[in-house]
Protein backbone atom coordinates (compact mmCIF):
# COMPACT_ATOMS: atom_id res chain seq x y z
CA UNK A 1 0.00 0.00 0.00
CA UNK A 2 2.80 2.35 1.01
CA UNK A 3 4.78 1.58 -2.13
CA UNK A 4 1.68 2.16 -4.27
CA UNK A 5 1.08 5.57 -2.66
CA UNK A 6 4.69 6.62 -3.20
CA UNK A 7 4.56 5.46 -6.83
CA UNK A 8 1.33 7.39 -7.41
CA UNK A 9 2.72 10.54 -5.84
CA UNK A 10 5.96 10.29 -7.84
CA UNK A 11 3.95 9.74 -11.03
CA UNK A 12 1.87 12.88 -10.34
CA UNK A 13 5.06 14.89 -9.63
CA UNK A 14 6.53 13.63 -12.89
CA UNK A 15 3.40 14.66 -14.80
CA UNK A 16 3.35 18.13 -13.24
CA UNK A 17 7.00 18.83 -14.01
CA UNK A 18 6.89 17.43 -17.51
CA UNK A 19 3.85 19.58 -18.38
CA UNK A 20 5.35 22.65 -16.77
CA UNK A 21 8.59 22.44 -18.68
CA UNK A 22 7.05 21.57 -21.99
CA UNK A 23 6.52 25.16 -23.04
CA UNK A 24 9.88 26.44 -21.84
CA UNK A 25 12.47 24.11 -23.35
CA UNK A 26 13.39 25.52 -26.72
CA UNK A 27 15.17 22.31 -27.69
CA UNK A 28 11.92 20.38 -27.71
CA UNK A 29 10.25 22.55 -30.31
CA UNK A 30 9.84 21.29 -33.81
CA UNK A 31 9.80 23.96 -36.48
CA UNK A 32 7.64 23.80 -39.53
CA UNK A 33 10.79 24.64 -41.51
CA UNK A 34 8.74 26.97 -43.68
CA UNK A 35 10.91 29.90 -42.69
CA UNK A 36 14.13 28.10 -41.76
CA UNK A 37 17.15 28.80 -43.89
CA UNK A 38 20.15 26.55 -44.32
CA UNK A 39 23.49 26.90 -42.56
CA UNK A 40 24.98 29.00 -45.34
CA UNK A 41 23.38 31.94 -43.57
CA UNK A 42 25.64 31.59 -40.53
CA UNK A 43 27.59 34.71 -41.42
CA UNK A 44 24.33 36.65 -41.72
CA UNK A 45 23.35 35.30 -38.28
CA UNK A 46 26.66 36.50 -36.85
CA UNK A 47 26.14 39.97 -38.38
CA UNK A 48 22.66 40.14 -36.84
CA UNK A 49 24.07 39.00 -33.49
CA UNK A 50 26.72 41.72 -33.52
CA UNK A 51 24.30 44.43 -34.60
CA UNK A 52 21.68 43.25 -32.14
CA UNK A 53 24.18 43.62 -29.30
CA UNK A 54 24.95 47.17 -30.42
CA UNK A 55 21.36 48.03 -31.09
CA UNK A 56 19.80 50.54 -28.74
CA UNK A 57 16.49 49.77 -27.16
CA UNK A 58 13.42 51.72 -28.32
CA UNK A 59 13.02 52.57 -24.64
CA UNK A 60 16.00 54.90 -24.87
CA UNK A 61 14.02 57.25 -27.08
CA UNK A 62 11.08 57.10 -24.64
CA UNK A 63 13.52 57.95 -21.85
CA UNK A 64 14.62 61.02 -23.81
CA UNK A 65 10.97 62.07 -24.29
CA UNK A 66 10.46 61.84 -20.55
CA UNK A 67 13.60 63.86 -19.84
CA UNK A 68 12.20 66.55 -22.17
CA UNK A 69 8.82 66.50 -20.42
CA UNK A 70 6.99 65.14 -23.46
CA UNK A 71 3.61 63.68 -22.39
CA UNK A 72 2.47 60.22 -23.42
CA UNK A 73 0.44 59.97 -26.61
CA UNK A 74 -1.43 56.90 -27.77
CA UNK A 75 -1.58 58.46 -31.27
CA UNK A 76 1.92 57.13 -31.97
CA UNK A 77 1.03 53.51 -31.35
CA UNK A 78 0.44 51.04 -34.16
CA UNK A 79 -3.10 50.40 -32.92
CA UNK A 80 -4.21 49.09 -36.31
CA UNK A 81 -2.01 46.03 -35.78
CA UNK A 82 -3.56 44.95 -32.50
CA UNK A 83 -6.41 42.89 -33.83
CA UNK A 84 -5.00 42.22 -37.27
CA UNK A 85 -4.42 38.73 -38.60
CA UNK A 86 -0.97 38.31 -40.11
CA UNK A 87 -0.47 35.69 -42.71
CA UNK A 88 3.23 35.57 -43.47
CA UNK A 89 6.22 35.03 -41.21
CA UNK A 90 7.59 38.30 -42.62
CA UNK A 91 4.64 40.26 -41.25
CA UNK A 92 4.58 38.41 -37.95
CA UNK A 93 8.27 39.09 -37.26
CA UNK A 94 8.15 42.70 -38.43
CA UNK A 95 5.05 43.45 -36.37
CA UNK A 96 6.52 41.67 -33.37
CA UNK A 97 9.32 44.25 -33.52
CA UNK A 98 6.93 47.18 -34.04
CA UNK A 99 4.68 46.13 -31.17
CA UNK A 100 7.74 45.50 -29.00
CA UNK A 101 8.66 49.17 -29.41
CA UNK A 102 5.06 50.12 -28.54
CA UNK A 103 5.25 47.95 -25.42
CA UNK A 104 8.53 49.61 -24.41
CA UNK A 105 6.96 53.05 -24.89
CA UNK A 106 3.88 52.12 -22.81
CA UNK A 107 6.00 50.56 -20.09
CA UNK A 108 8.34 53.55 -19.85
CA UNK A 109 5.34 55.83 -19.34
CA UNK A 110 3.92 53.27 -16.90
CA UNK A 111 0.75 52.92 -18.98
CA UNK A 112 0.98 49.28 -18.08
CA UNK A 113 -2.70 48.69 -17.40
CA UNK A 114 -3.52 49.69 -20.98
CA UNK A 115 -0.88 47.42 -22.48
CA UNK A 116 -2.82 44.18 -21.92
CA UNK A 117 -4.40 44.25 -25.37
CA UNK A 118 -0.99 44.87 -26.86
CA UNK A 119 0.54 42.00 -24.89
CA UNK A 120 -2.19 39.67 -26.24
CA UNK A 121 -1.35 40.73 -29.81
CA UNK A 122 2.34 40.12 -29.16
CA UNK A 123 1.49 36.69 -27.76
CA UNK A 124 -0.44 35.81 -30.91
CA UNK A 125 2.41 36.91 -33.16
CA UNK A 126 5.03 35.09 -31.11
CA UNK A 127 2.98 31.89 -31.12
CA UNK A 128 2.51 32.26 -34.87
CA UNK A 129 6.28 32.20 -35.23
CA UNK A 130 6.56 29.27 -32.78
CA UNK A 131 8.50 31.38 -30.28
CA UNK A 132 5.69 31.92 -27.77
CA UNK A 133 7.60 29.79 -25.24
CA UNK A 134 10.00 32.67 -24.60
CA UNK A 135 7.27 35.03 -23.40
CA UNK A 136 6.06 34.64 -19.86
CA UNK A 137 2.77 36.30 -20.76
CA UNK A 138 1.09 35.58 -17.49
CA UNK A 139 3.89 37.22 -15.50
CA UNK A 140 3.97 40.20 -17.89
CA UNK A 141 0.19 40.58 -17.59
CA UNK A 142 0.31 40.28 -13.82
CA UNK A 143 3.07 42.87 -13.49
CA UNK A 144 1.28 45.15 -15.98
CA UNK A 145 -2.01 44.99 -14.12
CA UNK A 146 -0.44 45.46 -10.69
CA UNK A 147 1.27 48.67 -11.94
CA UNK A 148 4.17 47.87 -9.70
CA UNK A 149 7.73 46.74 -10.08
CA UNK A 150 8.44 48.50 -13.36
CA UNK A 151 11.98 47.17 -13.47
CA UNK A 152 10.80 43.57 -13.36
CA UNK A 153 8.32 44.31 -16.14
CA UNK A 154 11.00 45.94 -18.29
CA UNK A 155 13.34 43.05 -17.54
CA UNK A 156 10.76 40.42 -18.49
CA UNK A 157 9.64 42.18 -21.67
CA UNK A 158 13.14 42.95 -22.94
CA UNK A 159 14.50 39.59 -21.92
CA UNK A 160 11.73 37.80 -23.81
CA UNK A 161 12.57 39.70 -26.98
CA UNK A 162 16.26 39.00 -26.47
CA UNK A 163 15.64 35.26 -26.13
CA UNK A 164 13.43 35.20 -29.22
CA UNK A 165 16.10 36.94 -31.25
CA UNK A 166 18.76 34.55 -30.01
CA UNK A 167 16.60 31.51 -30.68
CA UNK A 168 15.73 32.64 -34.21
CA UNK A 169 19.39 33.31 -35.02
CA UNK A 170 20.47 29.95 -33.65
CA UNK A 171 17.81 28.13 -35.67
CA UNK A 172 18.62 29.50 -39.11
CA UNK A 173 15.78 32.01 -38.99
CA UNK A 174 17.97 35.12 -38.86
CA UNK A 175 15.83 36.82 -41.47
CA UNK A 176 13.00 36.92 -38.91
CA UNK A 177 15.33 38.22 -36.21
CA UNK A 178 16.43 40.98 -38.63
CA UNK A 179 12.79 41.88 -39.26
CA UNK A 180 12.12 42.20 -35.54
CA UNK A 181 15.07 44.58 -35.15
CA UNK A 182 14.03 46.62 -38.18
CA UNK A 183 10.43 46.78 -36.93
CA UNK A 184 11.45 47.99 -33.47
CA UNK A 185 13.77 50.60 -34.97
CA UNK A 186 11.28 52.06 -37.47
CA UNK A 187 8.63 52.36 -34.74
CA UNK A 188 10.99 54.12 -32.32
CA UNK A 189 12.17 56.40 -35.14
CA UNK A 190 8.51 57.10 -35.96
CA UNK A 191 7.89 58.14 -32.34
CA UNK A 192 10.85 60.53 -32.50
CA UNK A 193 9.73 61.93 -35.86
CA UNK A 194 6.24 62.65 -34.48
CA UNK A 195 7.41 64.15 -31.20
CA UNK A 196 9.92 66.55 -32.77
CA UNK A 197 7.13 68.19 -34.75
CA UNK A 198 5.73 69.51 -31.47
CA UNK A 199 8.90 69.55 -29.39
CA UNK A 200 11.72 70.77 -31.64
CA UNK A 201 14.40 70.15 -29.01
CA UNK A 202 18.05 69.95 -30.01
CA UNK A 203 18.63 66.71 -28.12
CA UNK A 204 15.83 65.03 -30.05
CA UNK A 205 17.08 66.49 -33.31
CA UNK A 206 20.53 65.07 -32.53
CA UNK A 207 19.08 61.66 -31.69
CA UNK A 208 17.28 61.52 -35.05
CA UNK A 209 20.44 62.62 -36.88
CA UNK A 210 22.60 60.12 -35.01
CA UNK A 211 20.46 57.29 -36.35
CA UNK A 212 22.71 57.54 -39.40
CA UNK A 213 25.01 55.25 -37.36
CA UNK A 214 22.26 52.63 -37.14
CA UNK A 215 20.70 52.84 -40.62
CA UNK A 216 23.76 51.34 -42.33
CA UNK A 217 23.74 48.45 -39.87
CA UNK A 218 20.06 47.83 -40.50
CA UNK A 219 20.68 47.68 -44.23
CA UNK A 220 23.51 45.25 -43.55
CA UNK A 221 21.25 42.82 -41.69
CA UNK A 222 18.44 42.81 -44.25
CA UNK A 223 20.54 42.92 -47.42
CA UNK A 224 21.23 39.11 -47.54
CA UNK A 225 17.46 38.63 -47.96
CA UNK A 226 16.64 41.42 -50.42
CA UNK A 227 16.12 38.97 -53.25
CA UNK A 228 14.33 36.39 -51.12
CA UNK A 229 10.80 37.54 -51.89
CA UNK A 230 8.70 40.54 -52.82
CA UNK A 231 8.18 41.69 -49.22
CA UNK A 232 11.92 41.75 -48.49
CA UNK A 233 12.60 43.43 -51.84
CA UNK A 234 10.20 46.23 -50.88
CA UNK A 235 11.65 46.56 -47.39
CA UNK A 236 15.20 46.87 -48.76
CA UNK A 237 13.96 49.59 -51.09
CA UNK A 238 12.40 51.50 -48.19
CA UNK A 239 15.65 51.38 -46.22
CA UNK A 240 17.67 52.52 -49.21
CA UNK A 241 15.30 55.52 -49.37
CA UNK A 242 15.84 56.25 -45.67
CA UNK A 243 19.61 55.89 -46.06
CA UNK A 244 19.57 58.35 -48.98
CA UNK A 245 17.98 61.00 -46.76
CA UNK A 246 20.83 60.58 -44.27
CA UNK A 247 23.55 60.78 -46.90
CA UNK A 248 24.54 64.40 -46.24
CA UNK A 249 23.96 64.35 -42.48
CA UNK A 250 27.33 64.65 -40.75
CA UNK A 251 28.36 63.54 -37.28
CA UNK A 252 31.47 65.21 -35.87
CA UNK A 253 33.29 64.73 -32.58
CA UNK A 254 35.16 66.95 -30.13
CA UNK A 255 37.90 65.58 -27.89
CA UNK A 256 38.04 65.74 -24.12
CA UNK A 257 39.01 63.84 -20.97
CA UNK A 258 36.24 62.32 -18.83
CA UNK A 259 35.70 63.83 -15.36
CA UNK A 260 35.02 61.56 -12.39
CA UNK A 261 33.48 62.18 -8.97
CA UNK A 262 32.26 59.91 -6.20
CA UNK A 263 28.58 60.01 -5.26
CA UNK A 264 26.55 57.82 -2.86
CA UNK A 265 29.29 55.20 -2.84
CA UNK A 266 29.42 54.99 -6.62
CA UNK A 267 31.37 56.71 -9.35
CA UNK A 268 29.94 59.36 -11.67
CA UNK A 269 31.82 59.87 -14.93
CA UNK A 270 30.95 62.81 -17.18
CA UNK A 271 32.19 62.79 -20.74
CA UNK A 272 33.60 66.15 -21.80
CA UNK A 273 34.05 65.01 -25.39
CA UNK A 274 30.92 65.09 -27.46
CA UNK A 275 29.29 64.15 -30.73
CA UNK A 276 27.55 66.77 -32.82
CA UNK A 277 25.11 66.39 -35.66
CA UNK A 278 25.21 68.67 -38.69
CA UNK A 279 21.79 68.46 -40.29
CA UNK A 280 19.77 71.18 -42.03
CA UNK A 281 16.07 71.77 -41.38
CA UNK A 282 15.35 70.45 -44.87
CA UNK A 283 17.28 67.25 -44.21
CA UNK A 284 15.42 66.75 -40.93
CA UNK A 285 12.07 67.37 -42.64
CA UNK A 286 12.93 64.82 -45.32
CA UNK A 287 13.88 62.22 -42.67
CA UNK A 288 10.63 62.84 -40.77
CA UNK A 289 8.68 62.49 -43.98
CA UNK A 290 10.31 59.28 -45.17
CA UNK A 291 10.07 57.75 -41.69
CA UNK A 292 6.31 58.32 -41.55
CA UNK A 293 5.79 57.02 -45.07
CA UNK A 294 7.81 53.86 -44.56
CA UNK A 295 6.34 53.06 -41.16
CA UNK A 296 2.78 53.54 -42.42
CA UNK A 297 3.42 51.44 -45.51
CA UNK A 298 4.79 48.68 -43.31
CA UNK A 299 1.74 48.64 -41.08
CA UNK A 300 -0.45 49.24 -44.13
CA UNK A 301 -2.17 52.46 -43.14
CA UNK A 302 -2.85 55.35 -45.56
Amino acid sequence: MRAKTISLVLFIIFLIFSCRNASRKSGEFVLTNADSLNNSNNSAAEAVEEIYRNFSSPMEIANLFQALGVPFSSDFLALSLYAKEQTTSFEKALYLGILGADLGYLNMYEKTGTSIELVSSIKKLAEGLKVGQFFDFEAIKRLSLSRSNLDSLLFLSLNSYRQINKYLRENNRSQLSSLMIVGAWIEAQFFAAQVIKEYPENSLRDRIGEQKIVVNDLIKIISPYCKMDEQFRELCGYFRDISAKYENVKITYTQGTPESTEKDGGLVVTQTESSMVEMTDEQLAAIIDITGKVRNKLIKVN
Partner: protein
Amino acid sequence: MKKYLLGFLLLLPVTDLLSGQAPNDPLMSKCLLSAGSTAKYLKDLRIQLGQAASESEFRYKENMSLWKNTIYRFTICTADDSKGQLIMNIMDETNKIILSSIDKNTGTIYPFVDLVCNKSGIYQIYFDFTEQQAGSGVTIVSMIQ
Protein backbone atom coordinates in the same frame (compact mmCIF):
# COMPACT_ATOMS: atom_id res chain seq x y z
CA MET B 1 5.85 9.57 5.08
CA LYS B 2 2.50 9.94 3.31
CA LYS B 3 1.96 13.19 5.19
CA TYR B 4 5.29 14.63 3.99
CA LEU B 5 4.66 13.63 0.39
CA LEU B 6 1.18 15.15 0.51
CA GLY B 7 2.65 18.33 1.97
CA PHE B 8 5.20 18.42 -0.84
CA LEU B 9 2.46 18.01 -3.41
CA LEU B 10 0.47 20.86 -1.90
CA LEU B 11 3.57 23.05 -2.09
CA LEU B 12 4.03 22.47 -5.81
CA PRO B 13 1.49 25.06 -7.01
CA VAL B 14 3.13 27.59 -4.67
CA THR B 15 6.58 27.02 -6.14
CA ASP B 16 5.04 27.23 -9.59
CA LEU B 17 3.59 30.62 -8.77
CA LEU B 18 6.91 31.80 -7.39
CA SER B 19 8.71 30.73 -10.53
CA GLY B 20 6.36 33.02 -12.45
CA GLN B 21 7.80 36.03 -10.66
CA ALA B 22 10.41 37.99 -12.51
CA PRO B 23 13.29 37.54 -12.53
CA ASN B 24 14.03 34.05 -11.23
CA ASP B 25 17.78 34.46 -10.77
CA PRO B 26 18.46 35.67 -7.18
CA LEU B 27 21.65 37.51 -8.17
CA MET B 28 19.75 39.26 -10.97
CA SER B 29 16.94 40.23 -8.57
CA LYS B 30 19.45 41.55 -6.04
CA CYS B 31 21.29 43.49 -8.72
CA LEU B 32 18.06 44.98 -10.12
CA LEU B 33 17.21 46.18 -6.62
CA SER B 34 20.70 47.64 -6.14
CA ALA B 35 20.28 49.70 -9.33
CA GLY B 36 17.89 51.95 -7.40
CA SER B 37 14.30 52.99 -7.78
CA THR B 38 15.03 55.76 -10.31
CA ALA B 39 16.92 53.45 -12.66
CA LYS B 40 15.09 51.98 -15.64
CA TYR B 41 16.32 48.58 -16.75
CA LEU B 42 17.84 48.39 -20.21
CA LYS B 43 20.06 45.37 -20.41
CA ASP B 44 21.81 42.77 -18.29
CA LEU B 45 25.18 41.22 -18.93
CA ARG B 46 26.05 37.91 -17.26
CA ILE B 47 29.68 37.11 -16.82
CA GLN B 48 31.24 33.81 -15.78
CA LEU B 49 34.98 33.28 -15.98
CA GLY B 50 37.48 30.73 -14.68
CA GLN B 51 40.87 31.46 -13.19
CA ALA B 52 43.12 32.98 -15.89
CA ALA B 53 46.16 30.88 -16.80
CA SER B 54 48.32 33.97 -17.17
CA GLU B 55 47.93 37.69 -16.73
CA SER B 56 46.08 39.22 -19.66
CA GLU B 57 43.70 42.01 -20.64
CA PHE B 58 40.10 41.96 -19.38
CA ARG B 59 38.69 38.74 -20.75
CA TYR B 60 34.98 39.38 -21.38
CA LYS B 61 33.80 41.95 -23.91
CA GLU B 62 30.41 43.25 -25.06
CA ASN B 63 29.69 46.04 -27.50
CA MET B 64 26.87 48.44 -26.82
CA SER B 65 25.65 51.66 -28.38
CA LEU B 66 25.38 54.52 -25.92
CA TRP B 67 23.58 57.73 -26.75
CA LYS B 68 24.31 61.36 -26.00
CA ASN B 69 22.03 63.09 -23.47
CA THR B 70 21.50 59.88 -21.53
CA ILE B 71 22.79 58.94 -18.10
CA TYR B 72 23.58 55.24 -17.96
CA ARG B 73 23.99 53.36 -14.69
CA PHE B 74 26.12 50.22 -14.65
CA THR B 75 25.35 48.24 -11.49
CA ILE B 76 27.99 45.59 -10.97
CA CYS B 77 27.17 42.55 -8.82
CA THR B 78 29.41 39.62 -7.94
CA ALA B 79 28.05 36.21 -6.94
CA ASP B 80 28.89 35.23 -3.36
CA ASP B 81 30.85 32.15 -4.35
CA SER B 82 33.22 34.09 -6.65
CA LYS B 83 36.94 34.17 -5.86
CA GLY B 84 37.44 37.65 -7.31
CA GLN B 85 35.22 40.72 -7.58
CA LEU B 86 33.68 41.71 -10.88
CA ILE B 87 35.23 44.85 -12.39
CA MET B 88 34.49 46.76 -15.59
CA ASN B 89 36.21 49.07 -18.06
CA ILE B 90 34.46 50.97 -20.85
CA MET B 91 36.35 52.01 -23.97
CA ASP B 92 35.24 54.07 -26.93
CA GLU B 93 35.73 53.20 -30.59
CA THR B 94 39.30 54.50 -30.48
CA ASN B 95 40.11 52.15 -27.56
CA LYS B 96 40.36 55.05 -25.14
CA ILE B 97 39.29 54.13 -21.60
CA ILE B 98 36.22 56.20 -20.67
CA LEU B 99 35.71 54.74 -17.23
CA SER B 100 36.78 52.00 -14.88
CA SER B 101 34.86 50.61 -11.90
CA ILE B 102 38.15 50.10 -10.04
CA ASP B 103 40.44 52.88 -8.86
CA LYS B 104 43.87 51.35 -9.37
CA ASN B 105 45.52 53.91 -7.06
CA THR B 106 43.35 53.26 -4.03
CA GLY B 107 42.02 49.80 -4.87
CA THR B 108 38.43 51.03 -4.45
CA ILE B 109 35.90 48.98 -6.37
CA TYR B 110 32.68 50.87 -7.07
CA PRO B 111 29.41 48.91 -6.97
CA PHE B 112 27.91 51.17 -9.61
CA VAL B 113 29.15 53.68 -12.15
CA ASP B 114 27.02 56.40 -13.74
CA LEU B 115 28.08 57.59 -17.17
CA VAL B 116 26.83 61.00 -18.30
CA CYS B 117 27.06 60.24 -22.00
CA ASN B 118 27.77 63.15 -24.31
CA LYS B 119 29.08 61.24 -27.28
CA SER B 120 26.88 58.79 -29.18
CA GLY B 121 28.58 55.72 -30.54
CA ILE B 122 29.41 52.09 -30.06
CA TYR B 123 31.38 51.38 -26.90
CA GLN B 124 33.27 48.32 -25.79
CA ILE B 125 32.46 47.10 -22.30
CA TYR B 126 35.13 44.88 -20.77
CA PHE B 127 34.79 42.72 -17.66
CA ASP B 128 37.00 40.57 -15.50
CA PHE B 129 37.38 39.54 -11.89
CA THR B 130 40.04 41.05 -9.63
CA GLU B 131 43.44 39.41 -10.13
CA GLN B 132 41.77 37.52 -12.96
CA GLN B 133 40.35 35.00 -10.53
CA ALA B 134 37.34 32.79 -11.15
CA GLY B 135 33.89 34.15 -10.58
CA SER B 136 30.46 34.94 -11.87
CA GLY B 137 28.43 38.09 -11.80
CA VAL B 138 25.85 40.31 -13.40
CA THR B 139 25.90 43.88 -14.59
CA ILE B 140 22.63 45.72 -15.03
CA VAL B 141 22.66 48.58 -17.51
CA SER B 142 19.89 51.05 -16.78
CA MET B 143 18.98 54.65 -17.53
CA ILE B 144 18.56 57.33 -14.90
CA GLN B 145 17.29 60.87 -15.21
